[in-house]
């Protein structure tokens, strides 16, 4: 859909200071009909990348290539909806007026806008406040309003910069559900977030930006698999059994929890040993509390990569 080709960007933070390289020849693409997470630590260049995409700033070198199917008859941003980080609105207007402004700029038909607005304001639970002046909105309501403005014109590609920042758990859950729903409707979604569990939960793909360079692009599963392979680590199982009286197993428990008759042993058993371990449990008729395969989380993989 959109390709970033060799994009580099440097900023001079002060007139007398040397330029700092924010993006260093980055190459990646936003794929059609996929939910792509854009990951990176603070200052890694995520927002700069998005600003280049929308021509707010210009790259020192490289280009952003838009797919022909995405470019509308009037403008290349016609089929894109954008939700900037910490959106700010005209304080004296009502939510309804602002949404109408955004829909009018996109030349969206009034009737369709009205229908969409009804649906989205109800779905995001701000229908009760849509006629109120924006300056009376809470932070969560502003996020919801921002989200509506980014989808009101029914875009094919939705770009969200930290959409869930500042939302309460209910709001986060709602946003995640909506993003997944839009994904099912074959919309392409590209969103940046610091919350790795969110990305793991809802994204098909991730783009990992590290100090201005692309560290990874691909499916989340692929990253988890590659990481495991590069570390040479085996699958592990977490096993919890009720501590037997006067019995020692070959394996040492990681920890012991509980007291008296309810004392539990916690084990971490590697893939090659799990068969023997289970046999011993059956042999000694031990009581199993839980046996679970330990899957590495995105956090466990990405944080060491970023650090």
């Amino acid at each position, binding site marked *: 859909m959109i390709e970033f080709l060799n994009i580099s960007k440097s900023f001079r933070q002060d007139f007398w200071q040397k330029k700092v390289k924010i993006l260093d020849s980055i190459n990646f693409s936003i794929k059609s009909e996929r939910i792509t997470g854009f990951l990176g630590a603070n200052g890694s260049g995520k927002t700069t990348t998005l600003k280049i995409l929308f021509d707010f700033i210009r790259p020192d070198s490289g280009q952003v290539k838009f797919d022909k199917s995405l470019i509308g008859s*009037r403008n290349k941003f016609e089929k894109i909806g954008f939700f900037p980080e910490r959106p700010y609105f005209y304080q004296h207007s009502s939510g309804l007026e602002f949404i109408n402004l955004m829909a*009018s700029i996109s030349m969206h038909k009034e009737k369709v806008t009205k229908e969409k607005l009804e649906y989205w304001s109800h779905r995001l639970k701000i229908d009760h406040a849509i006629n109120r002046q924006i300056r009376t909105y809470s932070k969560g309501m502003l996020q919801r309003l921002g989200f509506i403005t980014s989808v009101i014109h029914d875009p094919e590609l939705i770009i969200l910069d930290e959409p869930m920042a500042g939302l309460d758990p209910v709001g986060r859950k709602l946003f995640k559900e909506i993003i997944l729903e839009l994904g099912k409707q074959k919309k392409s979604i590209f969103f940046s977030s610091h919350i790795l569990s969110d990305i793991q939960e809802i994204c098909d793909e991730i783009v990992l930006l590290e100090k201005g360079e692309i560290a990874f692009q691909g499916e989340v599963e692929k990253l988890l698999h590659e990481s495991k392979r590069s570390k040479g680590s085996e699958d592990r199982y977490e096993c919890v059994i009720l501590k037997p009286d006067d019995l020692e197993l070959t394996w040492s428990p990681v920890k012991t929890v509980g007291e008296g008759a309810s004392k539990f042993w916690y084990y971490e058993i590697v893939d090659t040993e799990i068969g023997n371990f289970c046999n011993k449990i059956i042999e000694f008729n031990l009581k199993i509390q839980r046996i679970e395969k330990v899957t590495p989380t995105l956090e466990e993989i990405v944080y060491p990569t970023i650090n």
Partner: protein
Amino acid sequence: MKENLLKILVISKFSVIELMRSKILIMIAICSLLVILISYIASELSYGMPNKIALDVGIGLLSISLLAISIFMGATLISKEIENRTLYMILSRPISRAMFLTGRVIGVLLLQALATIILGMTTIFLLKILGGKIEPIIFEAIFFVFLEAVCALLLVIFFSLITNNIAAIIYTIFLYGCSYACVELKEFLYVKNKPFVKNFIEFYQATLPDFTKLNLKDFVFYADKLPSNYFVIGSAYGISYSAFLFFLVIIIFNKKEFH
């Protein structure tokens, strides 16, 4: 083309609504009341020409109000959008920077036109009540005050795009003051005797905005006859200089990076 015009109109309509809801209308209403109040006090204290005083106060306050709207609104018109990131939402839609800027400027101009009509009508109404004669030059002077405000608005937007808000306000007021100071300076014997200084002032007047060309207040107040073609030349100067500033502002805005 039609779509582009519609987009500009949408932005300007929204700008007018937004500006109307800020405190600007209250300021215009206060100015109107001031015109009435000061004119009344002055007419009570003066002897023989209360209508002249009403006219002078009215046009003077109109000029100050419009300049204040231009300078203080113009300084934040675009820079506030960049600071608050509202610009990011709008420019990520199918609208060009030039269209957005045009819409915003038209919005402020419409508001200034409204202020001109309200304050101008108040002045003319008072003049009529106090027995003054309504000459065509009064309307010409009011039009020139509007043109002066347009010029100041574009000048302050220009500065706000290359510096910060405070500097933009200071530079605009400085240039406004300089244009009047130049006229006075040219009368100094020292300047008359120094061709270099005189040429410098003339060069300054030819290149930088000369607000004195848009000032008819003396002609109105002293009932001087306006030189022939003065109105046409002054209008042409105001409109062409504003157009030049507008294109300059668009070029800078198109090239500007929004960090």
